């Protein structure tokens, strides 16, 4: 199945795949992922240059989280090639993990440990040199320094999410995966997180974010894609689209189906 309104735009995506001028930060070819009889991803292709900020939109069950799990090595692809920084996510999984940081609606934080203890623990797991100094520096950056000795269970949801950003940045990853990072945040916490995420854009770090929120998703990204039923049906540079009508484009992609091809 494909989508009527997005057909030509998908062709644009294919075109971008044929222009490998620099080494890809992320390269995905014909990625398929099945859970039993359910096809979560059905032949996904993607090429991202270093420094790109890609936002992926899609309805529930479209395969966004599965796609992020494959990129982060949490789940193996059923078929296809997936490279992060030139390393295969299956054959070189430990190398890929060194290059990837993940922020999701799950914080991956231990409620009984303090903010500093959480970061020191993960710094040890990532073998970060001078882990304590790195943790302290990130706590300052995330404006959590004064609360670093408090248990995370006592943090607000927004504070936990900022600490989660610090956790993901401990090892200075080349690729940052943001899987619906705004879930469960109030407006203020969302705005603070958006500012933190914008601060991460340094032109070298590649970012992929999935979200349902069109306004937050379009803010600051330079490429946008829509995933529907395990396939990218839309993939464009933000500079090439009219962001004010993107909501209409999104609903067209999600709800309008082309007749079956002969």
């Amino acid at each position, binding site marked *: 199945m494909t989508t009527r309104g997005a057909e030509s735009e998908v062709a644009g995506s294919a075109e971008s795949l044929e222009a490998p001028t620099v080494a890809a930060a992320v390269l995905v070819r014909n990625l398929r992922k099945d859970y039993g009889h359910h096809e979560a991803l059905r032949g996904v292709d993607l090429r991202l240059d270093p420094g790109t900020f890609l936002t992926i939109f899609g309805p529930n069950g479209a395969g966004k989280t599965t796609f992020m799990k494959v990129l982060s090595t949490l789940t193996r692809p059923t078929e296809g090639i997936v490279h992060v920084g030139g390393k295969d996510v299956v054959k070189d999984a430990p190398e890929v*993990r060194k290059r990837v940081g993940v922020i999701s609606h799950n914080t991956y934080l231990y409620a009984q440990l303090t903010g500093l203890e959480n970061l020191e623990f993960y710094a040890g797991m990532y073998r970060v040199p001078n882990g304590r100094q790195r943790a302290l520096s990130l706590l300052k950056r995330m404006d959590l320094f004064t609360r670093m000795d408090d248990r995370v269970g006592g943090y607000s949801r927004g504070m936990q999410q900022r600490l989660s950003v610090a956790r993901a940045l401990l090892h200075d990853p080349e690729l940052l995966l943001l899987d619906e990072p705004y879930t469960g945040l109030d407006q203020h916490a969302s705005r603070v997180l958006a500012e933190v995420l914008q601060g991460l854009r340094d032109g070298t770090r590649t970012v992929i974010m999935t979200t349902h929120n069109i306004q937050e998703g379009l803010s600051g990204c330079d490429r946008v894609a829509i995933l529907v039923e395990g396939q990218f049906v839309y993939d464009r540079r933000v500079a090439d689209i009219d962001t004010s009508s993107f909501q209409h484009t999104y609903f067209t992609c999600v709800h309008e189906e082309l007749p079956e091809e002969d």
Partner: protein
Amino acid sequence: MSFFSQAWAIVRKDLVTELRGASTIVSMVLLGLLVVLVFNFGVEPGTASASLARSGVLWSAFLFSGVIAVGRSFASEKEAGCMDGLLLCPVDRGVIYLGKLIGNLILVFATGLIILLFWTAIYNVGIGGAWFGLLLLLVLATIGMSTLGTLFAAVAAGVRARDALLTVFIFPLLIPLVIGAAHMSTMLLSGKTLGEAGMWPWILVVYDVVFLAVSFMVFDFVVED
């Protein structure tokens, strides 16, 4: 950090988390003590049946409280998605297994020791010269319980009915361990030595070694999504 220091970081994290929450160890100790206490009312002190039953009571209490510890070890990682956080780290899966295993060994052994002491007091057991043998038995049983329990707790962690699933898997496999431990403790308390226990000590050693090796080999597949 080396393989072992990373594993130790997981142990330290688990123990700090447990001591601050204290939910698991309190449940373990209370259940173990209750089993010992309740069974005490079922047998008449000083009779031959009491002498035979007391070893079974000790190891049943150990079994029930141990299952709580191993069951919680991965369930706690599921909160806030911490298991995924661990799996995202560029560490050998063996590091995660070893860290979890050592944490369980410490918890299960400490609780087993408390149960053992309580059991000697309630049943008025004169350990005498058998204390070394009983301690060795506790070590062997702790290794077997923790090794197997850590692996199956990882299997069950992702399942909704994990507690039921864990007990269904683990109890039948722990039967040889419990029977062996009960048999040997009865012998030790009747004045015999471990050397006179025939194959039983070796069965427990082989049990521990086999499940330890198998667990290390299959853990990677167990935590794979």
